[in-house]
Every structure is written in structure tokens, then in C-alpha cells.
């Protein structure tokens, strides 16, 4: 029991994870692909997230005490289970790389222009490692502790951004092909609810708790939509220049010059969010790793992860630009595969579980 988190902590985990990779560079990338209609891509991809969440509830309902790995193994065999978890492992690793690089560039530009990449690496790695070692319950408590602060800051940022509201964004101005292109190229930044499947057996969930999830996630969805709406309304044609959406919507205005750097609110919010999101992803990745190599303990797992992470970063194989290029061009295919496999698997499991019932 000590390794489980409550349904509230699970809901907060999902709600905060929904912001991952979406509030800094993504609005700008979406504008590049489909102008202000990027907001519709956001809505479509959030709908995909909700579908994954719904599938999670269905699986959890059918198999309340089993892990996702055990369920796949039971019905499809060890090889399929391992293969799926290898895919998830790679997926989470690139998610971490993307989130780490985007956060690094954000802090580098906004705060620590002179600070070396490695300092960030060690700061983030230290937090990820200690979070994984302390376990999911510690992460859950951390999430609960910071949740209202983060959400409060987000609402405050949106409130401030209304002072800069210029005009309604110009919607429906892109050809339909651009929508589909945008859906594909931004898909990798979504699918955060997949983490819930990996942590399935560690979340205490009763039937009525589903509402709790939708309440917390609903708040995140509203915040995301408002941020994108304000971003496109404030910047219009120049949206492609602004790579730090959440800070830019409050700092661009000359009206706030006399008040100083208001983006300190955004900086603190992104800092807490990045630490928490990276910890969750890292924990999910270690879970996948431990399922693949069941004899390894959490300490060895995290040491392996740290070594690989440092090696990849030190070799400069993956940096801000390459990771974004990978995310837009290659990882989109990866995300499609995972997002397709998952519903198929879920349908199969539910069918099997119904058959087994007398």
C-alpha cells in the first residue's frame, strides 16, 4: 500500500501532466503550421487525451488491482507486453528529453543566460533521481502541495494577460490540409495520459473517483485553452516569434514596464511544473524499465537512466533544435503508433474480461 497514491493525487498528477510541453513553445509551433487555427488542433488533441483517459477508466474498472503490464502479459503474452513497454520506454525518454530541453531554453532565456547547460542537467537530474528514489507517494504529496499554487499562478497570468488583449484571433483562415499536418506534427506533445496506464496499479481508484479526475483535468483544459486564446489574440501575425508563450503574454506590453518583470510569476510556475512533470515522466520510465528487466531494483534503474541521460546530453546528440525537429517530424509517427495500439489493446482486454465473467 505504501507505493500507491490516492485518487486525488492521481487526478492532480494527470492534471499537471497535461501542461507538459504545451505552454511554452507549442503555441508558436502551432501558429507556424496553421495560424490561429492552432487552437482547434489543441482542442482535437485534448479530445484524444480525454479518450485515453476514458480508456484508462474502463481498463481500471475491469482490472482494478492489476498493472497494465500484467494484463497485456496475461492476454497477449510476454513478448507483446515487453514490446509495448519498450515503445513506452522510448516514448517517455523522448518526452523527458523534449521537456528538459524546452525548460532549459526557457530558463536560459528568461533567467540564467550565462549558466551552462550542465548546471541545468545536474539540477534537473538530481530532482528526478531523488523523486524516483523517494517513490510515487512522495511525488503525489509534492503534487498535492504545489497544485493550488501552480493553478493559482496560471489563473493570475491569464488575468494579467487580459490587460494586453487586442482583438479576437482570426480563425478558420488555414486550408484543411494544414489542420491534419498540424495534428500530426504536434501529436507527440500530447498523449500524457499514457502515464496513467503505466501507474495503473499504483492509483487507488473507486468508481465515483472518475468525477474527481474530470474536475481537475477540466481545470487544466480550460487554462490551456485560455492561454492559447490569449496568445493568439495578443500576438496575431507575430505569434511565430514568441517561443515562451506563458511568459510572453504578460511581459510584451509596455503597460507593465513600470511594474518590472512580471514574468517572475510565470518563471516560478514553469519551474515547479517542469520539476514535477520530469519527476513523473522519470518515474513512469523507470517503471517501464523495471517491467522489462524485472530483476533490477529501482536504484539500479535510476542509475542506468541517469547514465544514459547524461551520455545523450553530453554527446550533443539531442539538443533543443534536434529534439523539436524529432518531435515534429519523427516522433509524430511514434505517437500515432502508440495512440493506435493502446485503444486496440484496451478493446481486446475489455472483451476478454467480459468473456471471463460468468
Amino acid at each position, binding site marked *: 500500500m505504501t507505493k500507491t497514491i490516492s485518487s486525488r493525487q492521481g487526478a492532480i498528477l494527470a492534471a499537471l501532466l497535461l501542461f507538459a510541453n504545451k505552454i511554452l513553445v507549442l503555441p508558436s509551433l502551432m501558429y507556424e503550421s496553421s495560424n490561429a487555427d492552432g487552437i482547434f488542433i489543441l482542442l482535437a488533441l485534448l479530445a484524444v487525451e480525454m479518450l485515453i483517459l476514458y480508456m484508462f477508466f474502463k481498463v481500471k474498472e475491469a482490472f482494478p488491482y492489476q498493472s497494465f503490464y500484467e494484463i497485456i502479459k496475461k492476454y497477449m503474452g510476454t513478448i507483446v507486453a515487453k514490446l509495448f513497454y519498450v515503445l513506452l520506454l522510448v516514448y517517455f525518454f523522448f518526452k523527458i528529453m523534449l521537456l528538459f530541453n524546452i525548460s532549459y531554453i526557457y530558463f536560459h532565456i528568461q533567467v540564467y543566460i*550565462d549558466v551552462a547547460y550542465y548546471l541545468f542537467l545536474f539540477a534537473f537530474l538530481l530532482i528526478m533521481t531523488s523523486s524516483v528514489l523517494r517513490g510515487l507517494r512522495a511525488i503525489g504529496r509534492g503534487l498535492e502541495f504545489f497544485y493550488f499554487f501552480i493553478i493559482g499562478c496560471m489563473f493570475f497570468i491569464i488575468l494579467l494577460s487580459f490587460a494586453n488583449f487586442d482583438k479576437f484571433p482570426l480563425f478558420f483562415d488555414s486550408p484543411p490540409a494544414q489542420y491534419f499536418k498540424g495534428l500530426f506534427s504536434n501529436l507527440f506533445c500530447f498523449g500524457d495520459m499514457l502515464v496513467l496506464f503505466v501507474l495503473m496499479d499504483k492509483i487507488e481508484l473507486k468508481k465515483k473517483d472518475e468525477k474527481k479526475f474530470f474536475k481537475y483535468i477540466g481545470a487544466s483544459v480550460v487554462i490551456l485553452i485560455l492561454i492559447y486564446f490569449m496568445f493568439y489574440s495578443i*500576438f496575431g*501575425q507575430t505569434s511565430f*516569434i*514568441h517561443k515562451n508563450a506563458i511568459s*510572453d503574454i504578460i511581459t510584451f*506590453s*509596455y503597460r507593465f514596464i513600470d511594474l518590472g518583470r512580471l514574468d517572475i510569476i510565470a518563471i516560478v510556475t514553469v519551474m515547479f511544473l517542469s520539476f514535477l512533470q520530469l519527476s513523473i515522466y522519470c518515474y513512469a520510465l523507470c517503471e517501464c524499465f523495471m517491467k522489462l528487466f524485472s530483476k533490477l531494483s529501482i536504484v539500479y534503474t535510476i542509475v542506468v537512466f541517469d547514465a544514459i541521460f547524461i551520455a545523450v546530453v553530453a554527446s550533443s546528440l539531442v539538443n533543443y533544435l534536434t529534439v523539436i525537429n524529432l518531435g515534429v517530424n519523427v516522433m509524430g509517427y511514434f505517437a500515432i503508433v502508440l495512440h493506435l495500439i493502446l485503444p486496440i489493446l484496451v478493446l481486446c482486454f475489455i472483451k476478454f474480461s467480459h468473456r471471463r465473467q460468468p
Partner: protein
Amino acid sequence: MRRFFKTIKATPMLLALIFIAFFFFPAAIIAPAESVSNAIVTAIGLDKQENEYEVTLLTFLSYPNQSYTERYEIFTSTGGTLSEALTKAGLQLGKAVSLFHTHTAVVSENLLKEDIAPALNYLVRVASLPQSCILIGTNVETKLFMEFVKELDAEADLNLEELTFFNSNYVYWNDTSINSFLQGYYSPTETSLISYMPLVESTDDGIPIDKPLQTEEGEQGSANMESGGSGAQTGGTGSGSSGSSSGGSQSSGQQGGQYELINDGNEIIIKKGKKVADIDRDILRGLNWFSSRTTGAVLILDDVNDENFDHAQLAYKVNQKQIRQHFDYENGVPVCTTSIRLFVNLTEVDASKEELKKKNEASYISDAVRDKIEETVKSQISGAVDVFVQNKTDVLEMYEHFYRAQRGQTKKFLKQIGSPDEFLSHVVFKVVVSVFPN
């Protein structure tokens, strides 16, 4: 020691704290203060001289002193590219040039002869210049302008930031920040407005300073000391520092020009990043009737004849205005109907003694006054629109407004006329003015 290791084993986070204490704290303590390694630039001037960019930085330098005065220095450097010029400025300063706190960017008319967007694009995207920074055009070299601004701050405690902030809030039709410029630049009509503050020699209309300033021709190594191979130059506050621009000029015994800053709300129309035309206060007044943003306008009505006044001059202050615009096509022609509701106060009366006795309350208004106000507003609008039509500069963003309101018809209409640049000249303006006492 054994106990220590036991504690560490039980609480591994302590290890993390020890790691931080060993590696990060000493580095943070040893690291020099940011103000030592960074020069805080509060205003930047961009100029172009003989195919070379000239960058002038009004820089805040933090020196320990016993008075409460802030110390600013001017540094100028040149380069084939802006990055080269900024690097040279950094060498000159012995510090990294930090544009995070820059509030004002000044561009010279020389630079405005060519597209300024690439330069601003570089500063915003690479050099971290905030987009909220106000953009100002000037008629002189930016170096001279900066010298003036520095002296103005020293003498009258009037700084550029306050002047531009006031203009942007209360005088101009839109904010004249870099972001606003870029939004216009990337719009279909590629048109923006930026603030214009010329320096002129000895008129009585501007803001003067006591100190004479040297122009490029007169300085020859005295006003700004050229620093050899780098091509960088420095100037100073004139408060005893070496490299002081004014100190240098005085010691050489040359006569400087007496300049005044004209801040009467003029702006420049920029199209495709280049200067197209100046717009003066009168045109700006016409433009401002399309925006509820600027209030406080004063309407001067000459020759008012009604039941109370005979050939009087009345001044009304607009305390509030409500603007509603409707964009539609009538017989295939774009028609912009603007309804303006003005709430005014009578502030000044130039009339005979008897007339002053009769009616001088602030809420006074008559049909004749209403007609006069309507006539004045319409003529100001007409004057402004004519200028924009002549220059093919859609400052009013009519194309965008029609595109938003009537997308299908605007696309069809655009096919007929060929280019968004021609759109404004086809728009019919209908203005309805309603005047109410406030």
C-alpha cells in the same frame, strides 16, 4: 562518522543537499555580481553610416557613490552587422551588453530609408530586446539623440521612457512598441506607425537643454573618442568621467548646437519596414477618432453662432468617446460606418463680456455647437484618410477589418482590385457623430 553515514543512508536527500553545498554554493559565492559582468542598457539607438550599422547604447552603470544619482554613459560602436556592432560595444564596455531592461529603441531616418525589420528581428529574437520596447524615429543621428536624452535626464529629470509612455497611452492611436511595429509589418498591408521625435536647433516649441551638443561634423574625435581598430566610441555623462562627450567638446573649445526635442505627438508611417511619410498632430487627431483608446482631445470651435454666442470661439474637451464600427459591402463597395459618441465639456470661452455672463457652464451645448463639432470631427477624419489613401498605407487596418467581418466578399473584392494596398482607396467612410454634455 558512522552515525553520519547512518543518517545519510536513512535520508538520501541529505546527500543531494551536500552535493549542492559543495558544488553550487561556492560557485555562487565566488561569481561576480551581475552588474559587474553585464551592462544594463536602458535605450538603444540604431543608425546606418556608409553601409555600417551604428549602435548607440544608453547604459546604466552601477558604481558605488555617496549621492543618489544614477549614472548613465553612452557607448557607440559600428559594424557590418548588428551582432558585430553589439560585440564591439561589449568589448568597449568590458561587459556583456544586456538588453533585457531596454525600454526605448531609437532609429534614425538614415536607417529608415531601408527595411528596419531585419535589424529589429535580430534584436528581438537573438539579442533579447523586449518587444514591449517603444520604437522611436528621429531626424538626427541616434548618437546625438542619445546625448540629448541623457542631458535632458540629468538637467530636467525628464526621461525618454516617461515621454514615450505618456504618448503611447494618451496621444497615439496605437501603442508604438516593437511588437506593434512587427504586427503591422507581418500584416497583409505591411503598414505600421512609430513614434517620431525630431531634434531641432533653437525653436521655442521643443524641450530644451542648456548644454550645446556636437554634431558628427563638429566633433572629430573630441565629442566621442574613436577607439582605434574596433571602431567603437564612447561618450559620458560629463560628470568628470574619462571619455565624456560633453567634457571633450568643451575642452576642445568647439561650438556645439543648441537642440530642442520636439515631442508634439508626431508619428511616422512605415511600410515594408521603410519610412513612407510623416504624420503630424492634425492627421493624428483625425486618426484618433477611430479609437476609443485616446481621450482628452480638445475641440476648438471657431465662429460659433447660436442663441447665446455670436462669433465666439469655444473649446470643448472630449472626456469620453464610444466608437462603433460596422463593415459591410453596399453594391459591391466596402463601406465603413463609424458611429462616434462624444461626451464633452466646455472648457474655454472666447466671447464678449455679456456672453460670458450668460453661458459659461461646462455642460453647455447647443445644436449649432453639435453641428460644429460634427463638422470638425468629419473634416479631421477626412484629412487623415486622404493622407493614408495617397500613401497607400492602410494604417486604419481597413483590409483586416473587412476581412474579419465579410471574408468571402473581401476575397472577391481583393481579386478585383489586385492588392490589399489598393483596398483603402475603395473604402467609403460614413461617419455619424453624436455629441453629449458630460
